[in-house]
């Protein structure tokens, strides 16, 4: 079961992360870290007219945390800030086990929902999403 959890999609995102790197300014930079395990994610966002026009991540950590960040980049790029906020709450609920991992709704992220059965690893999957949550709180003040 666990080898399938790792192999399906997660390793692909870990080995070939989408959107790893940096954006040219102007941008919002938000750092997130888990002090207990040392995983670090930095998100960079460019928001124009209330839309996440571009997003990139950098960081290091386990396959779950890095794949989650890679999937986040693909999932929220092009979404409005309001849509992204709504979506990230749904994703966090899915990782908690409160929402079913429906692939039509969550896409590849549904594969990461396996972490809800490994409580000690849930924080790895949620790190990027909590970082996005903080980043989006800074979007109000940003001028187009």
């Amino acid at each position, binding site marked *: *079961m*666990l*080898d399938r959890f*790792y*192999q399906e999609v997660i*390793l692909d995102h870990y080995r070939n992360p989408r959107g790893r790197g940096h954006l040219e300014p102007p941008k919002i930079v938000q750092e997130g870290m888990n002090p*207990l*395990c*040392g*995983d670090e994610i930095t998100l960079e966002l460019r928001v124009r007219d209330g839309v996440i026009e571009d997003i990139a991540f950098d960081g*290091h*950590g*386990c*396959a*779950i945390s890095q794949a989650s960040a890679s999937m986040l980049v693909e999932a929220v790029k092009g979404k409005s800030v309001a849509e992204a906020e709504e979506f990230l709450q749904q994703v966090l609920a899915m990782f908690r086990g409160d929402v079913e991992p429906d692939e039509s709704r969550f896409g590849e992220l549904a594969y990461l929902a396996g972490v809800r059965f*490994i409580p*000690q*690893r849930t924080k*790895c999957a949620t790190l990027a999403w909590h970082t996005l949550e903080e980043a989006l709180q800074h979007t109000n003040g940003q001028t187009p």
Partner: protein
Amino acid sequence: MATTQRVLDASEIRKQFPFFQPHPEMRSLIYLDNAATTHKPYSVIEAVSHFWAHYNANVHRGAYGVGAKASELYEGARARVAQFLNAREMAEIIFTRGTTESINLVAYAWGRSQLKPGDEIILTEMEHHANLIPWLRVAQETGAKVVVWSITDEGRLELETLKSLLSERTRMVAVTHVSNVLGTVNPVAEICRLAHEAGALCLVDGAQSVAHMPVDVQAIGCDFFAFSGHKAYGPTGIGVLYGRREVLENLPPFMTGGGMIRSVNWDRIDWAEIPMRFEAGTPPIAEAVGLHAALDFIDSLGREQIEAYEHELTQYALERLQEVPGLKLYGPQPDRAGIFAFTLEDIHPHDIATILDSRDIAIRSGMHCAHPLGDRLGQKSTARASLAVYNDTEHIDRLVEGLHYVRQVFGYAG
């Protein structure tokens, strides 16, 4: 006359541990996280349980029989620890919550009262945060300076380096007996001798040594020695600070409250004698009784026998781990303790630990509370397997099989 060396049988030893008995609702676990905590034999669990059931009372006060018995058991545990460490007298044994509290006690009671701006504390690069952060903090507060004793690339401490760092400004050398990451066994007796020659004190962090080898504080010559009960088959919440009488006697208390004064009025406090001066409040009585039973367990096997058995198992583990392609092992070889920090290919240690857990093998992953060491190794996070006397070669074989499986999950061939 040749003495017959009794060979330990881990499968027999496991029979003394409820954790390793078959349970209808639990899967049996290959437990290789002993540097974090060890399991407890029946004798320890029963000693604690028996205390709660029959002798529960506060110590050093009740005029009734059970209270006297509780005090007798608690002080009996102190005498047992003194004997176990070969302290000169039981007054040199202070009960704490664990190694961390023991070292904080020294950093606060000794450091705050003795350190002046310009004084130096020597710490090694391989220290656990328990023997690092209390010193960094007391240095910040007093203006003393922390001097770092670097390790070699192999993960050892060189005495020549220490000699170059010691000076008349050195007041304390605080060093771990056994590294919780590298498994290095440090020459603590020589370190203490050099520290004393320079006029400094020496503290030894024994968290990873007491359960695995003979320890004699007089032979080591340290001024302080700290360890935790729960890493030595005993309960959590109990630890020990050994302090040499001449040093302890001149220290103010760490915490204050009930039980640590001789007399008090609004204008004046007279501190109690050692060790009571350092044991404010109701101590961990049942836990001390459990620690007594844990030390009895260790001595029933024999500390030299434990050391010899674990050394042999360590050699087997070193050999087998190196068969795993892409595995990088940290720390010196072949003389080391049974603690193995490693990395495997580009696979993150958390992923290694999670996949091994799916095969019922428990190891640790992360930074092991030693961030500066992680920086030195250039490897923030490592996986770590660590042995105790109930482990055997079959456990190592299962670990090695598990690591091959981890490689397979991550798409590495053979």
